[in-house]
């Protein structure tokens, strides 16, 4: 375990492509909005960077125990 989970709020996402460029292994654009390639991932700083770089704060990264890792408030 120790996996992180990634959620993308596709209602908030405006498809800037920030996350798909920042962490191409973890996000892809589908029909104009972002979706995680996999919802459960090994810890990777690129995922945090993607969540922190999203202008809409549409990406939520949590640790295995549910703690929000990004974005910071």
């Amino acid at each position, binding site marked *: 375990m120790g996996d992180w989970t990634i959620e993308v709020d596709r209602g908030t996402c405006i498809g*800037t492509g920030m996350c798909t460029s920042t962490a191409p292994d973890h996000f892809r654009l589908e029909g104009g909005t972002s979706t995680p390639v996999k919802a459960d991932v090994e810890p990777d700083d690129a995922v945090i960077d993607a969540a*922190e770089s999203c*202008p*809409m704060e549409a990406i939520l990264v949590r640790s295995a125990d549910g703690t929000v890792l990004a974005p*910071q408030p």
Partner: protein
Amino acid sequence: METRSYPFAELDHLEINPVYFELQRDEPVARVRLPYGGEGWLATRYEDVKTVLADPRFSRAAVMEPGADVPRTLPTMPSETNILSMDPPDHTRLRKLVAKAFTARRTEQLRERAQQIVDGLLDEMQAQGPPADLVEALAMPLPITIICEMLGVPFGDRGNFRAWSEAAVAITAFTHEEILAANQSLREYIGGLVERKRAEPTDDMLSVLIAARDNDDRLSEEELVSFGVTLLVAGHETTANQIGNFVFQLLRRPDRLAELHADPSLMPAAIEELLRFTALGGSAGFPRIATAEVELSGVTIKPGEAVFVNNVTANRDPSVFENPHEVDFHRAHNPHIMFGHGAHHCIGAPLARMELQVAIASLLKRFPTLQLDGDVTFKRGRLIRGPQALPVRW
């Protein structure tokens, strides 16, 4: 395949050279020759442009590699790295230092301040006119005030940095020496501010960047200064010119203007549509270098080749936008790429949207009979298009 000289001739009044649309239809990835550095490609279709902007096989940083001779409009290669010529993860390292301050949520908290600034500017305009020059009365001072307050740049210094900024975004509007000197002046100016704030930190973005450098070594001194310059220049040149451009577009379209007067709730959609429609940029800047073989609309781009994109033409792609040459405030879906796409998607996009909404809505409400007062002259030979002055009466 014909090789065309690029950039194409710039038309007046924000018109787009029809060659772009011919290429988009017949030759979506075209061979172009720049004044310096040889040949490259020009992509004009929406999907291709998005690929070039977001696919990691295209690099901005490759432009800065020693000995690179990239197709360009100026005789010399750029010597100073800035965030616009970086790739992830370096680009991410810098961008995330300030990304939080530019989110839609944080920007929304500045709306009240923007409204206050706009109300003050419109009071002054009303007291002194009609007529008025909307560029000086509203378009310039609003974004300059906001970015000065965010960055911690004294508004009183705007006389200097406006002139340098004006030259820094030039292609042919100034001589090559003037453009280089203006960039140098901007760096010296921000460098001086950094030294002052280092001695006496203030509550602003430059001080945040200084702390990130001095306490955590998260960026170099050169990166700090060039980031400050980029935020200051990009933070006002774009929005200031778009305010003027949007008012110009609206005042020439009485039907659209009447729609907005009848239903002010259309404003956010109207701003998105004007963003899609208005040719703010669209010259030969910011090429990407292929780092692997990539196919775009049937054309093979080889590693090392430069690709230019044209967002303005992409925003008129008929396969994405119905009646692309019409201004339509009722589009159900408007995925324009005026702010770019991918890692370099404009960090100030939420701020620009908010400023444009506040400025245009307040202007139309205050001056319902606003009209153009004579012909409008546009600046030429720059990366960013906009009116020299915008004479109006009411």
